[in-house]
């Protein structure tokens, strides 16, 4: 233990991971804070450390078969500035942390940190985004919704790293992002919300609704979405309060230093109510 390695290629990184239990550091914005020590002393890493931010092979954002693939070492600001980034992810990123932090923080970092208040996870769950998990022996693809299992809990094996995040194409008419925090920047969300829908022939053809900071992980109810799909706009307008209370039963906010559960529940209900009301 105690090895700290800066690999010069992905192959070298995967080789090291195959035999070491590591903390993987990309930008470092979350983990360097979690391992923070007294000023002037080294951070308190308790495992081997693998620094991947300089892997140029993972520094890309490109379209493949209409999906957007974002490499693990792209910074949040680079993603924000990229023309092919989904607009809802841009809306989310522009309110995430500050430009100083976005200049080095990464998307897999936000996901793997697995905070209930991780903003991009809400957008990834909304749009069925996946992570590509790669080890020396191969790759597997997991939906972010399944990859994040709970508070700081992720489905990542010891020999794997997140190679890229994949946003599949979608045909939603409207996609919205909404964050409630204490201030405009550097605010850890009290409640976050992302919603999307498509209307065809006066009926809901598809819909996706995701919340952050109101459950142990970002949450989406596929059951309630199934109930909403196929509804006419008229039926919807008379069922809004019913769905607000159904969504209220799905979430389970807590009291913490940033907010309290009563406020969070009220705000989440109000946001989903407004979202459903605006569907047309």
């Amino acid at each position, binding site marked *: 233990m105690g090895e*700290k*390695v*800066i690999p010069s290629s992905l192959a070298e990184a995967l080789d090291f991971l195959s035999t070491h239990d590591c903390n993987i*550091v990309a*930008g*470092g*914005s979350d983990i*360097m*804070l979690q*391992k*923070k020590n007294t*000023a*002037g002393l*080294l*951070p308190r*890493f308790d495992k081997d*450390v693998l*620094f991947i*931010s*300089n892997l140029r092979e993972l520094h890309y954002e490109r379209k493949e078969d209409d999906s957007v693939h974002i490499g693990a070492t792209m910074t949040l*600001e680079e993603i924000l500035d990229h023309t092919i980034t989904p607009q809802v992810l841009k809306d989310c990123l*522009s309110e995430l*942390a*500050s*430009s*100083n*932090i976005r*200049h*080095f923080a990464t998307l897999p970092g936000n996901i793997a940190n697995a905070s209930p208040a991780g903003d991009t996870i809400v957008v990834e769950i909304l749009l069925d985004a996946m992570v590509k998990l790669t080890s020396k022996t191969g790759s597997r693809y997991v939906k972010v919704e399944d990859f994040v299992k709970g508070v700081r809990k992720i489905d990542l094996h010891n020999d794997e790293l997140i190679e890229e995040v994949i946003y599949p194409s979608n045909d939603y008419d409207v996609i919205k992002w909404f964050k409630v925090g204490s201030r*405009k*920047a*550097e605010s850890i969300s009290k409640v976050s919300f992302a919603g999307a829908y498509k209307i065809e022939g006066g009926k809901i053809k598809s819909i996706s609704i995701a919340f952050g900071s109101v459950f142990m992980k970002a949450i989406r109810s596929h059951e309630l979405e199934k109930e909403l799909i196929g509804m006419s706009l008229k039926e919807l307008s008379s069922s809004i309060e019913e769905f607000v209370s159904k969504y209220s039963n799905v979430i389970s906010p807590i009291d913490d230093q940033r907010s309290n559960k009563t406020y969070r529940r009220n705000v989440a209900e109000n946001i989903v109510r407004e979202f459903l009301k605006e569907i047309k």
Partner: protein
Amino acid sequence: MARINFILNHQALSIDVDPSKRLLDFIRDDMHLSGTKEGCGEGSCGACVVLMDGYSVNSCLIPMANVVGHEIITIDGFKKTEEFKVLSEAFAEEGGSQCGFCTPGMIIASQSLLSHNPHPSEEEIRHALAGNLCRCTGYQAIIHAVQLASKIGGKLWEKK
């Protein structure tokens, strides 16, 4: 320990250092460049920001491993530039600095903004400086200082 090669204030360095060491500690303790300040040490206040390939980053959260192959400019390196003179004059003119602790970070974040957007709107300035806290000025004077710098030095940043 690892061998780290990078550029600090226009000088190529090749040093043996623990890769997890904070860039901030390297700058202040090893290089004795004390212009860069530590405020919160958590990435929230912006007092420690330096330029990494021209973009402002919180040096309190950057491990030395991550500067390999990059160019870092601290306030002590930046103060020799024409851009610094303009920003410095503008901050003085508008009262954008009082106790001065946030000022190195404010200047670096302003440079990061202006070098990529020489004529930002007020909203863009507020957005770019949102990660830099100041307890003295109330921010208005700092916003005005960046606007003034953009006005009197605009061509300086446009040519880049």
